[in-house]
């Protein structure tokens, strides 16, 4: 920590992590679960030590099996993290949600990576970028395809979810 702002920021983040009523799970740059805050267990009834080290796809699968539907993936590109998951205390279960609400929720989840895929593709097709920029955008596009693929595999597997 170099200055007081760093110290405050660190302490605020630490307090938020520990005392939040929202379950928070961090995914590291290699795509594995690196940590979960105390509220995660109470939000999901999943023991924290069972998800640490798990791949993101397996973690998604675990949430689905535990019937945890009300979560949000927030992408990060800093500090050694790829993303965090936020899970609400009253996250509810699939069985308690109407089929229409389920489909609406899945549609919203899919729209996020689809928006990035649409945007990157349109820019690549219509703008003249240098080679480095083009490679960077193509890489980002590929990553969003992976995110979307994971979502489809986990959220729209009819063997697991009975619409």
């Amino acid at each position, binding site marked *: 920590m170099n200055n007081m702002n760093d110290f405050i920021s660190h302490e605020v983040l630490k307090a938020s992590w520990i005392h939040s009523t929202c379950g928070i799970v961090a995914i590291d740059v290699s795509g594995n679960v690196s940590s979960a805050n105390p509220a995660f267990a109470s939000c999901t009834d999943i023991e924290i030590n069972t998800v640490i080290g798990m791949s993101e796809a397996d973690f998604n699968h675990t949430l689905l099996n535990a019937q945890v539907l009300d979560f949000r993936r927030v*992408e990060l*590109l800093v500090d050694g993290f790829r993303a965090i998951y936020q899970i609400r205390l009253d996250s509810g279960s699939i069985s308690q949600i109407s089929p229409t609400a389920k489909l609406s929720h899945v549609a919203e989840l899919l729209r996020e990576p*689809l*928006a*990035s895929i649409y945007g*990157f593709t*349109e820019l690549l097709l219509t*703008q003249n970028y240098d080679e480095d920029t083009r490679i960077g955008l193509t890489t980002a596009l590929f990553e*969003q395809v992976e995110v979307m693929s994971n979502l489809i595999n986990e959220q729209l597997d009819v063997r697991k979810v009975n619409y």
Partner: protein
Amino acid sequence: MKKVLIVDDQPTMRQIMRLALWSKFEIQEAGDAYTANELIKVSRPDAIVLDVMMPGDMDGYQLCERIKKDPELASIYIVLVAACGQVEDQEKGMALGANAYFVKPFSPLELMCHLTSAMLIDAPG
């Protein structure tokens, strides 16, 4: 050059919108509504592209409502962008004072054209 503030918690979406808009507008960015709210007071953007669903205590709807209720900020042109495509979601956004509502996925170039047109019409000079 008109100033546009892009507010979205997803870095990839901010990157896409920045790439689409940078040649026409001066771009500022915020990753959450709280940061955006502070930035707006200082920089007074001409337009805001505002994601509806964001982590934290304030979402895009709440920030939109706060801006439109402030007489000093109400003239800022607000485009809400959202993964919520239901008619009632759009109606809620427009009722809170948003000037436009884009449902994800949307064309970033269409957003650029929309803002270019809106800035000429609604904020001459």
